[in-house]
């Protein structure tokens, strides 16, 4: 793969990728911090009440997540693209400019969120403070900025492929997917008083991102990762990628209907959404089979131990978090009662972590290998295992706690209580629910610890005494 570049030398595009990764990791930290504040407010509702309210912490929590995952993906693409195409990315200065603009814009948005928090009910607030629509709360000016940055990014991918006069299957999939991903974001930029129409298009961003275009994006990134990690032949990797794309789009596009059961939309969505979304786990099973088969072929021996483990975690995490926890509540007969309970974040946490956080960590470890110790035949450290195990245990712990709380809510508030305000209160004060919230916080603290260990490992792996370089087997 790296014939063009001598070992240990980096493309400019790859140096830029590193910047993306470090900022992404910092925002990951911010996400955890605000998640913990929000989780604590469940236990102590007076905490920061009126000063930094739940909604503001939660908004920062999920927006930090969206931005850092996008930064991580862009970093991943900038890392692999020159390797795929055998040449430098064309608009590297433009890319750098876009990066610093984006970071500055995120800084401004965060400051406004923290200091201004909300505004009067008019268009000014929507343009300059917040749009107040879960996940895409960013004010309109920032939306336009994000679209501009995406456009630069797209231009770079396409122009580099054209210049290289070479296009691989992975890059072709990537290009079409990124166009769709950026296009979908614009579906989330319209205001309407009609809440049914509002949510109709809101889900085009939220669902068609995470269950269609992001899924294909990580599919392409993981395809490139597996080729480098395990030396799997391109023909096999690309055939699997096509299969995954066919199944993800084949099930996920109409699977969108599982969000159209109850928002005012017509009845046919009950059947269509239920059917197609119930099939969405199939491509996720395919990804597990692919990853396990490839890794098993190599007896888990690879050039990069932490990256391989995160890659395997990605396959399983995607299947369990998105496939199993999503399937659990996707049929309308179940969703009628579970909709909008803690079961949703139980699934949301496991899925976002399992499918996307793991993918980005895989690429970061691969990048660090090249940056710090391209001469090591096998990249490894003692610490990463601790971060890995603790992080996986913590996210499962949090999700398990929310699953118990969500089930209590489904039964007590929805099935028995008639979904009123009072029924809500009864469920929220039920001991099973409250215990769930305590355990969610406890595992959240573990999660923070695992994040710190992870950061420490990322900062130090491959540095200092080269003690861990065992240099066992594995191809280069």
């Amino acid at each position, binding site marked *: 793969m790296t014939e063009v570049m001598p070992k240990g030398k980096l493309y400019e595009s790859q140096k830029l990728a590193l910047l993306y990764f470090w900022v992404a990791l910092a925002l990951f930290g911010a996400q955890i911090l605000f998640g913990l504040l929000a989780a604590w407010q469940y236990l102590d509702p007076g905490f920061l009440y009126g000063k930094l309210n739940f909604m503001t912490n939660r908004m920062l929590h999920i927006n930090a997540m969206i931005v850092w995952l996008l930064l991580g993906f862009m970093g991943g693409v900038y890392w692999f693209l020159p390797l795929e195409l055998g040449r430098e990315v064309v608009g590297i200065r433009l890319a750098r400019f876009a990066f610093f603009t984006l970071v500055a814009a995120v800084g401004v948005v965060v400051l406004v969120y923290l200091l201004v928090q909300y505004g009067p009910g008019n268009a000014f607030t929507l343009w300059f403070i917040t749009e107040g629509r*879960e996940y895409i709360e960013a004010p309109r000016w920032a939306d336009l900025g994000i679209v501009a940055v995406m456009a630069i990014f797209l231009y770079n991918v396409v122009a580099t492929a054209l210049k290289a006069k070479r296009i691989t299957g992975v890059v072709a999939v990537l290009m079409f997917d990124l166009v769709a991903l950026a296009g979908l974001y614009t579906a989330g930029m319209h205001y309407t*008083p009609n809440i049914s129409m509002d949510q109709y298009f809101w889900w085009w961003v939220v669902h068609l991102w995470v269950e269609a275009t992001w899924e294909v994006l990580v599919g392409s990134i993981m395809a490139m990762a597996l080729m480098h990690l395990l030396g799997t032949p391109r023909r096999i990797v690309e055939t699997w990628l*096509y299969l995954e794309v066919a199944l993800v789009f084949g099930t996920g596009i109409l699977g969108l209907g599982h969000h159209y059961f*109850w928002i005012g939309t017509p009845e*046919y969505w009950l059947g269509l959404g239920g059917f197609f979304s119930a099939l969405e786990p199939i491509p996720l099973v395919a990804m597990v089979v692919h990853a396990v088969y490839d890794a098993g072929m190599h007896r888990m021996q690879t050039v990069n131990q932490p990256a391989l483990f995160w890659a395997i975690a990605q396959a399983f995490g995607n299947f369990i978090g998105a496939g199993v926890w999503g399937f659990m509540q996707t049929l309308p007969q179940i969703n009628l009662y579970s909709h909008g309970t803690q079961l949703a974040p139980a699934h949301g946490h496991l899925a976002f972590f399992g499918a996307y956080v793991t993918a980005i960590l895989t690429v970061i470890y691969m990048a660090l290998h090249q940056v710090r110790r391209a001469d090591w035949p096998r990249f490894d450290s003692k610490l990463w295992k601790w971060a890995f195990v603790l992080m996986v245990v913590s996210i499962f712990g949090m999700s398990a706690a929310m699953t118990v709380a969500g089930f209590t809510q489904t039964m007590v508030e929805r099935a028995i209580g008639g979904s009123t305000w009072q029924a809500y209160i009864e469920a929220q004060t039920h001991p099973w629910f409250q215990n769930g919230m305590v355990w969610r916080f406890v595992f959240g603290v573990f999660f923070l610890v695992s994040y710190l260990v992870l950061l420490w490992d990322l900062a130090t792996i491959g540095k200092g005494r080269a003690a861990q370089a065992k240099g066992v087997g594995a191809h280069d």
Partner: protein
Amino acid sequence: MEIGWIETTIGALFATAILTLWLSRGSGWLEPRFWRNAAWVSALIMTGILVYLTIDSLNQIREGSARVPAYTVINKAIGLKRDYEKHRDIPVIGDEVGFFGRTWSEEEAYALVNKGKLTLQSRNCMDCHTLLGNGAYFAPDLTRAWLDPKWENMVMSMTGKATKEEAMAEWLQHPDRYPTFARRMPNLHLSEEEARALVAFLKWMSAIDTNGFPDRFAGVQ
């Protein structure tokens, strides 16, 4: 025309399979070419169907349609009734009863609900509450908030207001003063006008036909 979901499903799967097989004739199903074809065929067919259904759905959820009421519904009495054939609750729109003591014209009702929606977004309500079941889980679902018995059972006497809409508007402006349980809604500094607009928005939303969500709200008969 009614669109049948089974026909659509079978049609979509069938078309994808046939077109993929036809385009890939001559190559085995394990070859990259087969799956490359499958990938873009399924993407195009499913997107096409989604676009078609979107046009139909948007028509059916336009305000003033059978599923989503006109904004002037705020002038009417609103209730829920059990449809025992489908076993689900459906909203029923009753007589003219007025809203804040008067009748609102089409433009006035639109302006009011619109203001309510802007206020909803500007105060980020959906990062604590769910609406139509979507949002955050820190506070109750608001889909049928207008119909919630708590306004009459508790909030009217707590605020000393004579009508439900006045009680709601007062409560929304000072939720910190009228706690209902340990978790209190923060004071979001709503103006009187914004609070009334929000009540209008909630009333309008409660008349949307949601295919029966939430089931048996407040034990509907």
